[in-house]
Each structure stands twice: as structure tokens, then as C-alpha cells.
């Protein structure tokens, strides 16, 4: 067994929340630069330039990339040979988030109750997912997600006999409804299979992966490509003001499912999709 004090996890969560909010992901920055070369309209080009400039300024001045510093999801892969000590894991994670949002001058966007709506002023609780893995390491990923795009996410229970075309059509419907509201160009996390709730979980998890057709299975890599092509032919473009770049990337995560269904969940995420990870 390897003993680990949960304070180490608290510190790592703080570090990752700050990094995610100040430093735009490399894969996304690269995709923005590629999109800038491809766009022809002056307006789309100017908008993409502003996003790139904003990322540089945020990193340099340690100002949040976006004022919506998000609802923090924390994904932990906990090695089964790790013995945690020094306190409760969930509390350590939440204290880590709280520290980051105080020290980093990040916005506290969480209300205590969906009806009563009093700000907790700590940006906690976070949403914590724990998976038990082999080994003696702890892998932590944080994903602070803005709600402009989160509000545009959707799920549909397709028929088991539905085709890949039906999946693409549903994604297009979701992106059209999102329109200019959720800060396009989008990154789409798509969960296919599992159950109603697990498909949604997969769609969120898919956003942690760098963009660029990286599903392990060939037919899903092809589906990612086909969805991206179809979405980019919608012409919504940066800020919804027209252009070739409506999405920067499409990541699919899949899971076995039931004979009677084919759940498809789409998490719509803005061009400032944020995440950071580290292994302890």
C-alpha cells in the first residue's frame, strides 16, 4: 500500500483549477489557429483572433479566460493500492476548489439550492466522480464548465435500430438550438450507449480528451469526423455570426448498452472548454 495524505489531493485540485481557468488548453489553442487559417470572412477571422489574444492575456496576467469560471467537475482515478489518510477525500477536493476560487479571484457561481438560490460564495460543492483503478497512483482531472453552453446540452433515447445518420441528425438539432448562445465554435462531448444517466456522464468525460478524432474504435473515429463535418456545414460560425467553424472538435465516448435502446447525450461546450489533469 502507498499512503497518501488527502492534503496532497487538496493542493493538486487547487493547482488544476487555477491552471484550467488561466491557461487555454493547448489542443484548443491549436484548433483555433487552424480555424483562423481556414476562415475567409473578415468577421470570423477577427473573432478567432480575439479568442487567441484573450488566451494569451489570461495566461500572462492570471485573469480567468472567461468570467464564467464554471461548475467544477472533478474526476478521480484512485489506485486500489492507495491508502488515503488525513481526512475525508470529498472534503479535501471541495476545500481545494474553494482555495483556488479564492486565491485566483475566480467567480463563485454555485448556489446552495436550485430553488432558494443562495450563493455559497466558495464555488462548492463540486461534482466528484471516483473510479477505482489498478496501481498506487491517483489521477485527478478537473473540468470547470461554463453554463452558457451547459444550458444547451441535451440527451435523447434513440431506438436501438437507429442509424449513425440518426445520431448525426440529433447532434445537428442540438447545435442548431444552441445557435449563437453558448459561445461557438463549440467542442462537443458525445456519450453514446450505457443508460440515460451514464450517456450524459460519458458526454462530459469525453470533453477531457484532447480534440482530434481520438476514439479508440475506428467506426467511432469516423463518426466523430462525420459529425464535425456536418456541424461545420451549418454555417453558424464564431459567435453565431457566420463562418466555417461552428465546432472545433467532436469527442465521442461509448459504452455497451441495452437491446432496447441507444442513448445519445450531447454536452455542448464553448470555445473556452477548460480542463487540467495530473497524476500523484
Amino acid at each position, binding site marked *: 500500500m502507498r499512503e497518501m495524505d488527502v492534503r496532497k489531493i487538496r493542493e493538486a485540485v487547487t493547482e488544476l483549477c487555477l491552471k484550467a481557468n488561466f491557461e487555454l488548453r493547448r489542443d484548443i489553442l491549436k484548433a483555433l489557429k487552424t480555424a483562423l487559417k481556414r476562415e475567409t470572412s473578415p468577421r470570423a477571422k477577427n473573432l478567432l483572433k480575439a479568442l487567441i489574444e484573450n488566451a494569451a*492575456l489570461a495566461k500572462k496576467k492570471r485573469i480567468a479566460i472567461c468570467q464564467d469560471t464554471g461548475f467544477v467537475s472533478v474526476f478521480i482515478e484512485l489506485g486500489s493500492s492507495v491508502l488515503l489518510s488525513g481526512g475525508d477525500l470529498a472534503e479535501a477536493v471541495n476545500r481545494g476548489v474553494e482555495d483556488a476560487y479564492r486565491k485566483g*479571484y475566480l467567480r463563485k457561481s454555485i448556489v446552495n439550492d436550485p430553488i432558494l438560490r443562495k450563493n455559497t460564495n466558495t464555488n462548492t460543492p463540486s461534482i466528484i466522480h471516483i473510479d477505482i483503478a489498478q496501481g498506487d497512483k491517483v489521477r485527478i482531472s478537473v473540468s470547470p464548465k461554463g453554463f452558457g453552453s451547459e444550458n444547451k446540452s441535451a440527451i435523447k433515447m434513440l431506438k436501438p435500430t437507429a442509424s449513425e445518420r440518426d445520431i448525426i441528425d440529433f447532434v445537428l438539432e442540438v447545435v442548431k438550438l444552441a445557435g449563437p448562445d453558448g459561445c461557438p465554435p463549440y467542442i462537443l462531448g458525445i456519450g453514446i450507449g450505457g443508460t440515460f444517466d451514464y450517456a450524459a456522464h460519458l458526454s462530459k468525460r469525453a470533453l477531457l480528451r484532447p480534440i482530434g478524432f481520438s476514439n479508440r474504435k475506428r467506426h467511432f473515429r469516423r463518426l466523430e469526423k462525420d459529425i464535425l463535418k456536418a456541424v461545420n456545414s451549418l454555417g453558424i460560425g464564431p459567435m*453565431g455570426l457566420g463562418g466555417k467553424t461552428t465546432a472545433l472538435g467532436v469527442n465521442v465516448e461509448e459504452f455497451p448498452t441495452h437491446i432496447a435502446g441507444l442513448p445519445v447525450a450531447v454536452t455542448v461546450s464553448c470555445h473556452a472548454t477548460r480542463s487540467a489533469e495530473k497524476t500523484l
Partner: protein
Amino acid sequence: MSIINIKTPLTVDIRKELKAGDEVLLTGTILTARDAAHKRLRDILKKGKPLPLNLKDAVIYYCGPTPARPGRAIGSCGPTTSSRMDHFTTDLIELGLGGMIGKGDRSDEVKAAIKKHKCVYFLATGGIGALLSTKVKSSKVILYGDLGPEAIHKLEVKDFPLLVGIDSRGTDIYPPKH
């Protein structure tokens, strides 16, 4: 295209000159308000009472900024999605509101009110809150401090970059929804 410089208060004369698609640099005073603040303002109006702030020719910015680091006027301060404010907006336009700043499109009802009262809806670029913070010279909470980031802040801005989204004739930069 040339860039138009405008100053607050945003009088009807200024509003009438702006056309959907125009690039604008705004200088002067703007007020932040998002969901929770709009709901409070609406509740006051519902009771038939006067609002605690004067909206005539004023500009409301749909924004909840991050806190300012020491020595800075404000933190990251980009726009939030405007359509969430649609059902509160008509009442404020009727009180003489000059303009709104946000991102995304608006309802037909809001568009009609904009046209009727010669108001203007501006777009700020979403997700560039760090860049926009450099255009804000000062920020002060003037109402509803208990709402934290959702409080009404009075911002002094200089050359704040905007696009005219819906002009005073009701012309919209976005294509019609299908």
C-alpha cells in the same frame, strides 16, 4: 468598415444612427445585471413601485464579472447569454432603457420592443473576458451586493468593443430562426 465611437447616455439620437452589424466602441457608464438582479427589478415593478435606479438612456450589460485582483478595476468580464433575460426585458425598455449588451439572439417580443422604443441591442464577444477587462476603468457595486457576482455593478468603460446586434429599426444581425 469604419468603427463608430459612442458615449453614454445613449440618447435616441445616438441610437437612431446605429445599424445592425456596425462595429462600435462604447465609452461611459454601463450597469451590469443578470438573472437574479432582473428578477428583483421585475418584482419591484410588479408591486407598482419605482425602480431604485434610473434606466432612461442607460445601458445594461448582461455580465457577472470575476473579482478584481488588487490594483485592477475588474476581473474577467465577458457577456452572458441574453435570451435568459428576454422575459424581463420589455418592461425595462418601456422605462426608457437605451441599450443592452449580451451574447446570442433575442425573442421576437424583445425585438418588437426594441423597434417600438428605438432601443439597441449590442453583442459583446463571448469568452474574451480577460481582454474586455482591459476596457473597464472602474467598477463599483451599486445595488444587491448580497448577490455576489450577480450584483448590479456600475462600470466606467473606455472604447468597449461591441457589434450592433439589433438596431432601433428592429433589424437583426442574426438570420431568422427556422
